[in-house]
């Protein structure tokens, strides 16, 4: 596993991606730091963190787009399959290498609050809490990008779908507020989600009856629950959507709360998406 980690980590600095990722992230940090902390003389670095989280929309796809798509493109995945190493270890090594590149920027960010100490009183602990939240958010988004990269052979497509997914997650908080909270609206919303899952099942198995049965059973249960007790659906779809608002969970960290719930949420996201990536890569063998 060490060999894969070393190779991956190095590869981000033998081509441009590592530099672009770090450079862009730190540039934006620098701009907001200058504007908020230095020009407007706010002592809280947390505000900078809250303002730069949107940068992930662009930088995470840049970092993750090549991780697996490029292996498929160069056919080097055959080497990985033929080595006596489990695929899961290779994927974890790849993931950790990307997180390590990201952590370089986090370590540099940790210097900013210290600089402010020269000018007066700063709550360094609260700033570091916000930076930790930022690090967890980034790590979770990288796991999502890693999964997107395993779906395709093309770096470009991988970058575009990662960007699209992250954008929807970024806007999820705002989107969910315009959706009606009635029970019927929830049922319709869940039906659309089920339909989407059915389509995904169809594309993974190429078996129409199986996909249709999956959709049908889900829909049946949904309607059954709705007619027995419709009240449980009140506002359920909105909370369901809010569950995916990955970015909004950074808020507590910004206000100086170290939100363990959010940490668990981010860690679970990481586990789920790394697991899905392993499955997606293993699946290619069975095609």
């Amino acid at each position, binding site marked *: 596993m*060490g*060999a*894969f980690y*070393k*190779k991956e980590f190095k*590869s981000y600095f*033998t*081509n441009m991606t590592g530099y672009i990722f770090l450079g862009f992230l730190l540039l934006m940090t620098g701009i907001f730091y200058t504007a908020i902390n230095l020009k407007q003389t706010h002592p809280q670095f947390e505000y900078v963190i809250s303002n730069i989280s949107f940068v992930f929309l662009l930088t995470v796809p840049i970092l993750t787009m090549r991780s697996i798509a490029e292996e498929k493109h*160069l*056919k*080097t*995945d*055959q*080497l990985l*399959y*033929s*080595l*006596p*190493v*489990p695929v899961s270890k290779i994927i974890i090594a790849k993931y950790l290498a990307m997180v390590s590149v990201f952590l370089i920027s986090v370590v540099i960010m940790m210097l900013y609050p210290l600089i402010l100490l020269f000018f007066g009183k700063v709550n360094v602990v609260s700033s570091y809490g916000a930076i930790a939240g930022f690090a967890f958010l980034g790590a979770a988004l990288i796991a999502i990008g890693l999964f997107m990269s395993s779906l395709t052979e093309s770096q470009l497509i991988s970058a575009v779908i990662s960007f699209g997914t992250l954008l929807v997650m970024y806007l999820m908080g705002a989107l969910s507020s315009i959706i009606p909270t009635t029970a019927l609206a929830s049922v319709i919303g869940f039906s659309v989600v089920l339909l989407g899952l059915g389509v995904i099942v169809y594309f993974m198995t*190429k078996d129409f009856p199986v996909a249709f049965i999956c959709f049908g059973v889900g829909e049946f249960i949904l309607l059954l629950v709705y007619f027995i007790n419709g009240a449980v659906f009140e506002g359920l779809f909105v909370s369901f959507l809010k569950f995916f608002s990955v970015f909004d969970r950074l808020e507590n960290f910004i206000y100086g709360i170290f939100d363990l719930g959010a940490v668990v949420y981010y860690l679970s996201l990481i586990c789920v998406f790394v697991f899905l990536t392993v499955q997606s890569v293993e699946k290619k*063998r*069975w*095609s």
Partner: protein
Amino acid sequence: MIEVKNLTKKYGDNTAVKNLSFTVENGKIYGFLGPNGAGKSTTMNIITGCLAATEGEVLINGHDIFEDPYEAKKCIGYLPELPPLYPEMTPYEYLTFVAEAKSIPYDQVYNEVERVMDATGIIDVRDRLIKNLSKGYKQRVGIAQAMIGSPEIIILDEPTVGLDPIQIIEIRELIKSLGKSHTVILSSHILSEVSAVCDHVMIISGGTLIASDAIDNLGKYLVGSTVMTLIAKGDPDRIKGAAEDIRDVTVKSVSPAAHEAEGVYEFIIESNKDDDIREKIFRKVCETNSVILNMDTKKMGLEEVFLKLTSEEGAEAEEDAPEASSGRKKEKPKKSAVREKDGESDYKPLFGTGNNDENNEKEDK
């Protein structure tokens, strides 16, 4: 030792490999031969664990590649069709990475990488980026990668494709030297390559094994057939009759010779025996008061037999039905026997040009 049992691989409705079984013994160079799309790469990918089989099993030194993949993969070095190289690395970095990934002890990595670089002759380019290397060098880096850790079995998928003649000779020498200490399986659609390098040949067509034998035995069967082009002036029927008086000789075709005077004919004559038939033909044809203008013999090569075997397989599948000439009837049980007994050294597989020719003869008549 590799044991492949009843291997089948389907891509959707398309069957790439059908019920393939064979055994690979230690210490030999095996050649996998077949036209494009015959299932060579698919088979190799399954043996090395890069692909999962639809049915059947693969045992590598007793380890099942699906049940116990890590032990099995330790015994194998694999060079896929496209060398799996990272263009942004140098050969030295790349091979070090592979050595570490194959869990070679830390203090031996350097020596191991030096050893394979030396064996494949890439010391000179060790610090150049792989993307700047020529195709021949890339191929060598790929082979070096497969050699790392001295696995017992080295599998090379079309190792000489796209190389220039000098590089091809060098790679072949390298494979031969590998064969001294490893079991090597290589695939190719180039027959001369297989006959130059391998000890044992397996011919695959349409996903099934149609022949498997030691290269020496193969040679013996192949030499059996001679094709002669005869140009003679005289009565074509009499000449044909005279030639066919000789045992084991058939006249395949008679036609007026091109660019020759009236009354000059071209005969394609085939002999099933290895004997030199020129003298006999000369005497027989002279008896008919004809004049021989030109005589040209050609040994039946590996190419012809290969083409015959692979195309016959297709034709046979179409005609598999009830009608069967006596020749075919005789032949079929033997063929299935080949499939059952694959890999055993004592069987006589049907490389029999004799039987094939018998067929042709009957069809012609």
